[in-house]
Every structure is written in structure tokens, then in C-alpha cells.
């Protein structure tokens, strides 16, 4: 296959030149913008040797490059640092190639270094040619064309809703649990006996008692508040608080046989000392006697 030729040798160059010719001069004077860097420049110089890049004379190439840099200096052309680094390296390489090999076997020989440089140039050249070869293919949009009026598949997104029974039940359970946690305030209006109401009611009932006698607090609760536990509890709490308040004011007396025993209360007769006649010794300290 001729590709072999093409890739390794490269097309023949038409510039017939030797050494530092007018062409090289032109190369110098022409701004270096055309080159991507020292390797690019070296490759261009190497190409002019018109041989397989791996068989170029690296020594000649190094000399050529160094001459170029010297010339640039003479012409006061500012070379970028990487060109100078390359020059320094090539000067070193040149010395390694010219001087006898040092005894140390650790370092690569001059010939090896030269080989590497040649290989590097050949590799870059190969990629240049590969790029060109790629570009010469039957490119899409140039030689080959795709369908001009593609028929896009209609995407029918069918949504399937996922919901299983466990989730449904859990949801319901969640709502009901939330209910159980709900604060009282939601139901306040219906199921909470206001303190004022309890106090008014208690005062009224106590005042209406013909014979003041110890009576359980529960007896003072309105019948309609006794059924629902929630209402009952509220009525008890409010009435108890009202009873405390009335006791503080000295309007009634409180008494409890034992802790958690029924709370008893009776209207206070005029002249009696508070709690004086508590019948039993165990007096629940329910009241605030201050």
C-alpha cells in the first residue's frame, strides 16, 4: 500500500536547497508566527532534508537550528523562550554527538538522544499526515449526507402512576396519627370550658346552695360537658381552676381526703377561718391559701 510511503516518507518537497540558503533567510525573516513552536520549526527544517525523518542527520539539523537562532540574534529578532530552550538542548546534543561517549552507561548516548529527536519529529509528521488523510475522507456533510428530513420518533410518554395498597394504608394511618397529635387549639371553641364561665357557674351554684355542705367538684359540672371525655376533662380543669380562684378570694373552702381522692368544696360561711374545720387529718394541699 502506498500509504506506507506517504506516511513515512511524506510527499517530496520541491525546495532544492543546501545549507543556509535564501530560503532559510526567508524563513528567518518571515515572522515565526507560522510555526507552532520549536518542534514545528525543527520539523520544517528536517523536511528539507528530504529523507525519511528517522534517517535525517540530527547533527546537521541541530547545526541548522543553532544557525537559525544565531541569525535571529544577529537580526535582533526576539525568540520565545521555548526556542531558546530547544537551542540549548540542541547545543548539548551536538556536543554529545561530536565528543567521544562518556564511560557512564546510565545516560543515553548521543546517538540515542538523536534517535529520540528524530523519532519525535517523525511521530509529529505522521500525525500531520494522518490529520490530512482524515480530512480527505468522504466526510459527512461534504461527500456523504444524512437523511435531510429525519422523522423524529414521536415520544409518547405514558405515565404510569405507582401507588400500592401499603402506601395507601400508610397514608391513611399517617393522617389519623397526625390527628392524634393535633394540639387542642383546633377544637378549642367547642370542647374547652372557658375559665370565666367556670368561675361564674361555680359562684352561682355555691351561692344558691341552701345548706352549705361538702360537695364533690364533679357535681358542679354541667351535664352536657360530662359525656365526651375531652369536654369533661376541660370542664373539670376549668372548674378546678375556678374553685382555686374562689378559695383564694375566700368565697369557698376546699378539701381532699387523700391524694387523688375526690375534691370537695363548700361555700364559706361568714366568720369562719379558712380551712379551720377540716374534718380529717389528711388534708390535701390542693388550695392556695395565701
Amino acid at each position, binding site marked *: 500500500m502506498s500509504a506506507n510511503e506517504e506516511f513515512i516518507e511524506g510527499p517530496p518537497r520541491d525546495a532544492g536547497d543546501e545549507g543556509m540558503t535564501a530560503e532559510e533567510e526567508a524563513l528567518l525573516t518571515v515572522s515565526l508566527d507560522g510555526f507552532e513552536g520549536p518542534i514545528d520549526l525543527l520539523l520544517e527544517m528536517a523536511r528539507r532534508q528530504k529523507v525519511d525523518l528517522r534517517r535525517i542527520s540530527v547533527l546537521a539539523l541541530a547545526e541548522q537550528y543553532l544557525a537559525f537562532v544565531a541569525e535571529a540574534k544577529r537580526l535582533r529578532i526576539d525568540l520565545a523562550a521555548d526556542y531558546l530552550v530547544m537551542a540549548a538542548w540542541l547545543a548539548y546534543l551536538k556536543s554529545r554527538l561530536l565528543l567521544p561517549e562518556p564511560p557512564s552507561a546510565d545516560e543515553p548516548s548521543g546517538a540515542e538522544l538523536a534517535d529520540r529527536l528524530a523519532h519525535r519529529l517523525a511521530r509529529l509528521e505522521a500525525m500531520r499526515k494522518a490529520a490530512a488523510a482524515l480530512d480527505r475522507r468522504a466526510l459527512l456533510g461534504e461527500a456523504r*449526507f*444524512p*437523511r*435531510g*428530513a429525519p*422523522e423524529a*420518533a*414521536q*415520544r*409518547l*410518554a*405514558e*405515565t*404510569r*402512576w*405507582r*401507588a*400500592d*395498597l*401499603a*402506601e*395507601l*394504608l*400508610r*397514608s*391513611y*394511618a*399517617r*393522617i*389519623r*396519627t*397526625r*390527628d*392524634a*397529635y*393535633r*394540639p*387542642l387549639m*383546633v*377544637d378549642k371553641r367547642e370542647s374547652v370550658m372557658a375559665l370565666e364561665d367556670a368561675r361564674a357557674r361555680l359562684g352561682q351554684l355555691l351561692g344558691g346552695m341552701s345548706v352549705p355542705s361538702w360537695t364533690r367538684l364533679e357535681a358542679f359540672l354541667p351535664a352536657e360537658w360530662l359525656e365526651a*371525655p*375531652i369536654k369533661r376533662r376541660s370542664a373539670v380543669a376549668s372548674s378546678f381552676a375556678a374553685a382555686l380562684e374562689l378559695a383564694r378570694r375566700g368565697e369557698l373552702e376546699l378539701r381532699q381526703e387523700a391524694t387523688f381522692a375526690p375534691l370537695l368544696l363548700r361555700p364559706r360561711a361568714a366568720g369562719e377561718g379558712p380551712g379551720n374545720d377540716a374534718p380529717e387529718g389528711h388534708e390535701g394541699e390542693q388550695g392556695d391559701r395565701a
Partner: protein
Amino acid sequence: MTAETAAEEPDGEEDAATGLFAAPPEAELERMVEALLFAASEPMSLAEIARRLPDGAEPEAALASLVKRYEGRGVRLERIGKAWAFRTAPDLGFLMREEVTEERKLSRAAMETLAVIAYHQPVTRAEIEEIRGVSVSKGTLDLLLDLGWVRLGRRRESPGRPATFITTTAFLDHFELESVKDLPGLKELRSAGLLEADPPGAEPEAAPKPAPLLERDEGEEPKDDATTEEGGAQKDG
């Protein structure tokens, strides 16, 4: 195929007689028209095709031949008004539809609403809101109606005659229930571990309602001592 190829031959001869010297042979012309129409972004008129072909080439015969060639194939060459274009064979149109089923989970709000409807049907929107403690968006109810899991029941005979919602047979089908009466009561839910956590002091004897449909206020009492974290803190199970 063999028959078709044979049928094209006479056309080629005809063209050779009428065509200009520069005009490509019939077979080549057919390839050209085929490529042009394939790459065209819109149907091409006879004039447009001719303009793109080498000078003097006339595409009519090539078109006729292509129509035959593609007969019965997956694509056909169609005449659309005065223009020509390749189109998928009509019987294969179904291939041009890509059905994507995406599974989506019902939102929590939708699941809860559905649950309330299932347990309390027939139930009005106001009642759902009361039970859930939040307002029910129209979108949520619409989705449930769309899914066919919920439908409108009788209007409630109360002021304003509000609409009620009930579940459907499709609902039963989807959740594999014989009847809504089969929905477990609260206690069963709890014993099945479907209640995330027992509320503190929950009454263990809370009515084992087998059919809680109409009993909206099971014997639960709001616990005044409970620290409520309005639903949001409750994890999905």
C-alpha cells in the same frame, strides 16, 4: 426484485434516445435522484431536482423507477403535491412512535387524599380538608379523577349541596381490593405496623372498625400533651 430490475431496463433505453450527450445514464440518474431526495430536508419539486442534476438530465423516469423500486419497502417515494419525498411506509408508522412509560409515584398529598376518600366516602372536599388538616388542591383531585380511581358521588343534601367523592372499580382493581369494606381499620393498621409510631397514650382499644366508611370520628382524642410536628416530620414508611 428481479422483476423490478427487468422492468427498468426499457426506461433506460428510452432516455438514452431522448437525453443529451452530457446526461448520465438512467441507472446513474436514478442513484442521483435517490441521493438528492434522501438528503433533502423538504420535498423537492421536479424543477428543483432537475436543477441539481447534471445539465440536461431529466428526472421523471428516474422518479418513476424509484417509486417502483421502493414499492413494498420500509420507505416509499411519495408525491406530495408537485414535490417528491421519501416517507416511511404508512403501515410502519407505529415504529415512529416511541412509547416511553415512566413510572411516577403519586405525591403524598394525592395518596392522602385518595386514602381519605377511600375511607370516608362519600366525602366532600371540605371534609377531606378537615380530615387532612390542609387544603386540597384542585390538581390533586383532578389527577385522581383522571386516573379513574375516584369519581363524583351524589351531592350531599346539606347547604350548598356540595359534591362528594367516591372511589371506583378501577380503584379496587388497582389496589386489588374486593370492596372498600376490606380496607383495614386503624387498629389493624397499627398492628400491621403501618402506623409509624403509636402516639403516646394511644388508646389500645380504639375501635376496630371493620367498615369505617361513615364513622369519621373514631374514638380518638386529641392529646393535649402531644408535641405536634404538623405532619411534615413524619417520614414515609
